């Protein structure tokens, strides 16, 4: 198969890669760039473990062709913290015991990040709706929802 050169912004850095059309973003991130934060959980968009941000919105790396992200901006969980300074969500996940086995955590945090970017003060219901594509088998979600809510701003007048 023919290789194409794609250029993307990955965690803030320009990156040029040669990819074949059948290569999936998830596999390029993991197998070629060794960014293993995004996980394979189901391969068909049912679990959210591979969630990354593409142009600022959550997307599933397991269903995204690498050729198709030419010119786009990709942020993985590795790109979330600024240096040693964790993202508030990462802090919150630690403080609320929202992490058990941790395998869903990267995808969960990326989804939560985009929720708060879209809607800085979501209700508990809105949080649950928003993360319903991210499966966690350990926690029962409660601690995760609390962690996310703890990062939400007070609603005006609330």
């Amino acid at each position, binding site marked *: 198969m023919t290789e194409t050169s794609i250029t993307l912004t990955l965690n803030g850095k320009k990156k040029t890669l040669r990819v074949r059309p059948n290569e999936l973003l998830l596999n390029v991130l993991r197998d070629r760039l060794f960014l*293993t*934060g995004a996980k*394979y959980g189901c*391969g068909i968009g049912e679990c959210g473990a591979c969630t990354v941000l593409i142009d600022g919105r959550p997307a599933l790396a397991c269903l995204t062709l690498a050729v198709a992200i030419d010119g786009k901006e990709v942020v993985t969980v590795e790109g979330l913290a600024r240096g040693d300074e964790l993202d508030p969500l990462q802090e919150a996940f630690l403080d609320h015991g929202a*992490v*058990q086995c941790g395998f869903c955590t990267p995808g969960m945090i990326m989804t939560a990040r985009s929720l708060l970017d879209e809607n800085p003060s979501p209700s508990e219901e809105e949080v649950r709706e928003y993360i319903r594509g991210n499966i966690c*088998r*350990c926690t029962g*979600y409660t601690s995760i929802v609390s962690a996310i809510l703890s990062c939400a701003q007070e609603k005006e007048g609330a």
Partner: protein
Amino acid sequence: METRQFEVAGRRARRKDGIAKVTGREIYSSDVYLPGMMHAVVLRSPHPHAEIVDVDVSEAERMGAVCLTPFDVPDTVYNERTVSIPEKTYRDRTVLPKKVRHVGEAVLAVAHDTEELAMLALSKVKVQYKELPSALDVKDAMVEARGARLYDTVFLGGECIQVKNNIACERSIAVGDVEDGFRQADITVESEFEAQRMYHAQMETKAAVCAPEPDGGITVWTTTQTIHNVRQLLGQIFSLPLHKVNVKRIALGGAFGSSIQMNSITPICVGLALRAKRPVKLVTSREEDMYDHVKYPVRFWLKFGAKKDGRLVAAHMKALVDIGAHNIQAYPLLGCIAGWFASLYKFQNLLFEGRAVYTNKVPACAMQGYGNPQTNFAVESLMDMLAEELGIDPIQLRLMNYVGVGDEFWGQGPTVRSIIKSCGVEEMLSRGAAMIGWDRRVHPSQKSGDVVRGIGVARGFHTSGTGGPKPGEVIDYSSATIKVNEDGSVDLITPVMDQGGGTWEAAAKVVAEVLKVPLDMVGISPSDTRTTGYDVCTHATRGVYCGVGAVHHVAEQVRQKILEFAARILEQNPRDLSLARNEEIGQAVIYPTGLPDRYITLGEVAKTAQIKSWGTIAATDSYRQKNCPPCFVTHFVEVEVEKRTGRVRIVRAALLGDCGTPINPDMVKGQLIGGLCRGLAFALLEETAYDSNTGRLVCGGYLTDYKLPTACEMPAIDDIMVGFANTYEPSGPLGAKGIGEAALNSAASAIVNAIYNATGIRFKKLPVTPERVLEALREGVAR
């Protein structure tokens, strides 16, 4: 509350592996990449039952692939799970059986430079099968005349035994005289119950990476709950001395029992690596994983006999387990089911008859509870039925009969017993009743409308490990190494795996507590089978009680050494010294008792020991717990049933846990709530259905049609109330017991009891899907 006497244990702290996990930097087996690594894929059987007549991998090899077929792996017969003593262990499998016994069973494997090349090579492999009659239904399977015969013989310990009617093993256990018991009974209730095949759905699919070492040995990273048992099995299968088999302890993306045995892919990966002389990585796809393991499905027949006053006098349970294609420790399972049954209530006289049967389906293995949630569903359902017959409040009936302090408890079947020393059953039943508002509970007959609510209770327990005063049939001990570094910080080296529940945190906290060092001065070292003593497995809810129990045992020895070395410096008698935590200077300090100002820091002691060449303050030891204390739980659940659609929603829940001292309170809480979520799945949602013609999973192994609960299925934060019993386990580390499996055991039972209280319909088959609810409601209406 007793936990107040502790400075570290019982307090919330960020888990040590937390930063790595939230930044995506934690490395799981599936994240291991080695130079020159090959990637492997497995060819799996399309047939439920067939002989492999011939395989042709020549074309794949021409493409540069390395192949492993049933004809070139060692044919050592083993049981992938090590738990019982050898003479009680059945063995029926090899790495790549020459006869496949379920759809999706591994036939052969192919490795190449990339997973893609491996897949392409795999598509060129030709396999010739001779299809055999298959048994997909457990009842059919027991009639050999119908043609299916999975095994002619298997091994029990050293001896080769016949398999008849596909019955893998049976166990019959009696206490007292059950006939006589039923004769004394004023009232009896009986019923059948059925718990489905449920898939673990741990987030990380099975993964293994094997690096062949230049000295002929192997290094293995794999999804497992027990690095030492994997090591021993690999050594046995590939005839390697154990010092050349190194299994690394590595983060595990959930397991829930699915990695309690050596994963089926692990020896395949090793076989390929040894053949290729290159590192090989093998990660299963989700669909492969769903064809690899499943929870034990059990059909029960259960009968209780009781006096009018509610006192139980007899119980008789028959359990039929459909274990699928391999016997992954079904014998101890039957013993455990008997134990889970016998230890919930004082039946006086009981009889248990258990039978495990082979079918041509995915092999069943432990899943959080090892038969306990299934058993609990039957027992707690029948207790409610009995309560109704007797007109006694379900809580009263339970209080009247529960097994508690001073009673004998079966921790892992009839041979692992100890006397209960701590019990929060009464406290939890009364506190839980208040939390959920039990007094609001009314009989279903008094409810009307399209949407009805109901409250249910169920109590459960699990063992904390499988220790005991007598060795019994089950292996259980753990090991630990603790050393004090020259600056007063501490290295903890443990073989115990942590599935994410917080076992390692507990271990670190216990060290900090005993040695009086600040928690952040305790490091949990990476470890592997070469650097640690034996630990059987992170199963049986033994991580904290047994694994950390060993850590506690060793910490005490280190404490003594600290005092002895300090005594030399302070020129005192060790007995006259005190060890204390000094948060300002962030060190443990030692001083003559009563003279806190004359302290020296642990760092100074360790440094002096180095300079004066006294040696390192360290200890290594193994330790077996002499008990198997039950960790009790009580689930109160309120459900809402939409009668028009049959949909059931959990609206409120009170989860009570008795884990002795909760060393990591927020993690215990996390376990209880996680247990509720999987209990919901077990009770209402999940089942791996099979196509009765093809023997394939109806969902094809894809999560599209095997639905897991999402955040939206769980009750709101404020509607989940969690409470800990105020107990202290004298035999446990800092008074702690386990919690892990218990957290699930009575969840489903409570939900089903709540559905009954809402609708007046008793569901005896899980999962209780809207389809089943609506059907039942309609029949109810019709009748």
